[in-house]
Structures are given as C-alpha cells and as structure tokens.
C-alpha cells in the first residue's frame, strides 16, 4: 500500500495524461499512446490497493478507462 504523499504525484500524472488526451484526441497515434500509458499507470495504482476514485477531469471517457477502474465504480452501484 502506498502512502498518500506517494499517491498524489501519480494522481497528478494521471490528470495531466487525461488533459493531454483531450488535447490530442483527434490524433489517433498519439491518443492511443496516451491511453496505453494512462491505463498502465492507473492499473499500477489500483494493484497497490488504492481504491479512492478520481475526479472527472482525471478520467478518460468510460470506453477508454481500464476495466479494473470501472470495477471499482461498479462496487458503488446500488
């Protein structure tokens, strides 16, 4: 399990990657690369036991988010 001060920089990188995806969503090659890096990093974070959730600005559109994250959100379905 990571400490909060170790998690925060990862959250910032995820936020910036989501922002970079928004700027490059029409550039297929670059957008794909960003999604790959984003998914790898988010899965790494989840695999450490993190389950807090991200704000919308730090998420990609649902269809580009990793299943592991969507499963976290599904836990909250009522």
């Amino acid at each position, binding site marked *: 399990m990571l400490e909060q001060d170790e998690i925060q920089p990862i959250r910032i990188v995820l936020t910036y990657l989501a*922002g*970079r995806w928004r700027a490059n969503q029409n550039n297929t090659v670059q957008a794909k690369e960003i999604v790959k890096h984003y998914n790898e990093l988010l899965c790494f974070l989840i695999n450490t036991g993190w389950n*807090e959730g991200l*704000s919308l600005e730090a*998420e990609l*559109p649902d269809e580009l988010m990793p299943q592991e994250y969507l499963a976290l*959100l599904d836990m*909250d379905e009522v």
Partner: protein
Amino acid sequence: MLFDAGKNVVEIYAFQGNGRLRNLGEPLTLTGHVGLSLDGKRIYGFGPIIPKDINFREARNQLKKSAFAGQLSDDTNFFKKVACGFYNRGQIELDLYKLTVPINEQTYLNIIEEIRTGGIGAFYKFPEKGDKNFPPNTYNCATFWEKCGVQLPHQSGFLEEYIPAMVRQGAERVKK
C-alpha cells in the same frame, strides 16, 4: 455593497470531485467545483450548461471530451451541502476549502459585472495539457475568475493541483 480599498477580499471555495460518487447523479460531486464569494454569504460558480436532451452518463462522457456553453450560478446551497458532508458516502468524503484573496477595485467591478450577466458568452471545458490549457474564451470553474483579475492559487486549472496550492497558501477547511 461598495468597494472598500484595503479591506476588500474575495473568498475562493473549492473541493475535489470523485468519480465514485456517480450514483448520486450530481455532476459537480464528480468534477469538483470552485466558487467565489464577495460577501461571505453568496457563492457563485462557473459551470457547463448541460443540454436537456442528453442523459447523465452521456453528459459525464462529453465533459471529458469537449466544451460546453458556460454560465455562472448561485451555488451557495450546493457548497453548504458539501461542507456539512451531505454527499459523503462511506470512505469517500468531499473536503471543502476556503482561501481569502485580496482584490482591487477594478477586479471587484469585473466580478460584479460577471455575476450580473451570469457569465454568459464564455465556454466551459476541462483543462487540456498542451501549449495552452484552454482555447480562447474557455474556462473551467477554477480559472473563470482570472478573467476578472482574481489572482488564482494555481494557473493550470487542474483541481488536482489547484486545491493543494490553496492549502499551501493558507486555505482553511470548511466543515459544518
């Protein structure tokens, strides 16, 4: 209310959103939100005008991709609810912070004018990461007030950085 040089400040209120609150059906709990108060009573926030013909799920996804027409609204009651933990669920808590920022008379007048016109004409978009974080005349809730001259705690517009910057600059937690 008249401008009082030397005394005049605004209060910036902000909290970070959380995607795990999507079942509440309240978009601002997912995005997080920033508001500004001139008098410590009414808090105004800039947000997107969501077309009535798209559902919540679609709106959520569109916000991650594109710009919407924006508007200023009186979000006082919403911020009060955040402060008293109304939207908290289990371990997911929304922490509201308040930062006091000095302003000059021109900024004060600009804010009054924006509140009067409801911020109409500006666009709302999440920040991008590129040469510029926002296209012209486009803001999110965090950066909107810069157009009036308010000194922002952080320039990028990403709440992930904005709120820690507020805390570093002396913001206090608001809890009721």
